[in-house]
């Protein structure tokens, strides 16, 4: 018992060797951690480097063009204006549908549904939906919204498809926000005679709002970068006019970037990179807003 040679972790004679193994192990683990960070830095640096000099005011305000000269300074001006407007409309519509359906479903699951088989079935189903590849949602949108509902390859078909795609994430984050509202507040409201709907409307939802907004904005920032679902729904790779109605054909930033990235001329690589910088800037802004709301209003932080 007094010597440590009988322990499962060996004796003291090889303590030097163990120290070396320990040091090598930490070094390997630390180096692995750096792999992800270095990849992130390389990706951002690569995109910025390739786009350098190609992001002009015209790039943000003109429709795309087939010829490279139009993108250059002194050209007639070309860019991704219809795609930017398309993406903004798409996300605004998606936000409306998602907030209604996502918050509604989460309120049902957290506030109304009793602990039952039905509730656990719905929750397991939501967890599964979150793991369905986004291109499969694209097929769903194509068969249901574009064909069966005869909406065509329109803005609204794209928005409904993206809504179904991010709904599981919105529901789960909203549930967390609702769960964070202390039960004592609900009980207090019931105590003064409020009905369940009044408790939800006047007590629970206002308290949970910052959490709901944070989760929803983060999900929408995922939707704005999605290519595969809207591609299957039939979003145009490049359009020369911005969409002007729910039923009008549309393009979106990721679609235009995809088109540019596949063109053979080397200059289009720079133009694609410029498009990526615009997309990532919008993503970054959305994330910053979400984090700001969380830090500013979340009672837990």
């Amino acid at each position, binding site marked *: 018992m007094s010597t440590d040679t009988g*322990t499962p*972790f060996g004796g003291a004679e090889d303590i030097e060797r*163990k120290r070396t*193994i*320990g040091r090598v*192990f*930490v070094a390997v*683990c630390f180096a*692995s*951690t750096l*792999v*992800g*960070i270095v*990849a*992130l830095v390389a*990706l951002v640096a*690569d*995109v910025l480097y390739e786009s350098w000099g190609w992001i002009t005011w015209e790039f943000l305000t003109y429709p795309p063009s087939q010829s490279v000269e139009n993108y250059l300074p002194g050209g007639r001006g070309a860019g991704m204006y219809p795609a930017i407007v398309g993406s903004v409309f798409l996300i605004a519509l998606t936000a409306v549908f998602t907030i*209604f*359906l996502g*918050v*509604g*479903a989460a*309120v*049902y699951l957290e506030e*109304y549904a009793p602990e039952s088989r039905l509730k656990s079935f*719905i929750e*397991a*189903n939501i967890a*599964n*939906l979150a*793991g*369905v*590849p986004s*291109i*499969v*949602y*694209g*097929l*769903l949108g194509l068969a*249901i919204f574009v064909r069966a509902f005869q909406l065509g390859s329109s803005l609204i078909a794209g928005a409904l498809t993206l809504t*179904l795609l991010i*709904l*599981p994430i919105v529901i789960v984050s909203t549930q967390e926000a609702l769960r964070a509202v202390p039960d004592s507040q609900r009980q207090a409201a019931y105590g003064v005679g409020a*009905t369940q709907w009044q408790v939800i409307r006047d007590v629970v939802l206002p308290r949970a709002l910052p959490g709901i907004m944070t989760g929803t904005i983060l999900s929408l920032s*995922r939707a704005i*970068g999605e290519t*595969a679902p809207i*591609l*299957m729904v039939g979003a145009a*790779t490049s359009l020369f006019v911005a969409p002007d109605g729910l039923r009008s054909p549309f393009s979106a930033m*990721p679609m235009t*970037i*995809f088109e540019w*990235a596949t063109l053979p001329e080397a200059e289009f*690589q720079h133009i694609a*990179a410029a498009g990526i910088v615009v*997309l*990532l800037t919008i993503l970054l802004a959305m*994330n910053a807003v979400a984090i700001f709301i969380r830090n500013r209003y979340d009672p837990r932080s």
Partner: protein
Amino acid sequence: MTSGGSELADRKNAAIRYVFFSCALVTVLTTLAIILVLVQGSVEFFRHVSIVEYVTGTEWSPVIRPQSYGVLPLIWGTLLITVGSAAIAIPVGTATAIYLSEYADPQVRKTIKPTLEILAGIPTIVYGFFALSLITPIIQLFFPETGTFNAAAGAIVVGIMIIPMVSSLSEDAMSAVPDDLRNAAYGLGATKFEVSTSVVFPASLSGVIAAYILALSRAIGETMAVTLAAGMHPQITGNPLEPIQTMTAYMVQIGISDVSVGSIGYQSLFAVGLTLFAMTLTMNLFSMWVRSRYREEYQ
């Protein structure tokens, strides 16, 4: 019971309840619709193409004559990307998780974890561009015969993309291992290396494996990055420097072309989609099962 009392208020509350219930029902309907759409489209497809040919054929040529519809080259392409990305993400992600959970001080962890998670939030089209503009040229430095589109670049960017899935979920599982276990091992004379690898890692294994499976499932369904990086050339090859086509990339190829509704090309979308859906669903269910079946309960 209700203090409002009136029948009208009761009815209003019941109606509101049904509105919320219908919102939750949308998620169930979504699942049903996905299955219905995929199965219906596949049934149409298999009226023209025999299932045996689809499952065992080694030639995928749905557009160019003579047409043939053997899905194995697409599945092979998907597996090549999945295995390649796993070979990167699993060791790197696991080591990252061990570092963050066992070695890094809390302040460092609080900075690095969200930084790595940015990788998961970058749109996949950006990874596709990254592969074309930086990863493939680097591969070409070492292997000059590599073409613009190659499986290796696709596997590398997908691997980078899923690192945070492996590292974050594994780190959660490792941090959940109670300190009592660590202290008990230290009391027996274990070094920090032995505690990390022989105590914490095995104790968190169910969570770690669930994370691996989820990450692999994500790699299988990955679309835009592999379409841009790995190409549109369905073939069964062991050489990662050659172009391939994944199931998802095939769906993109049909999606951007003008294939008329009712044609075999259009129907093949649903057969391939069903194959993809079945694979990811199996893995997601398996991941959930592993986590619940082998969960270590600590008090």
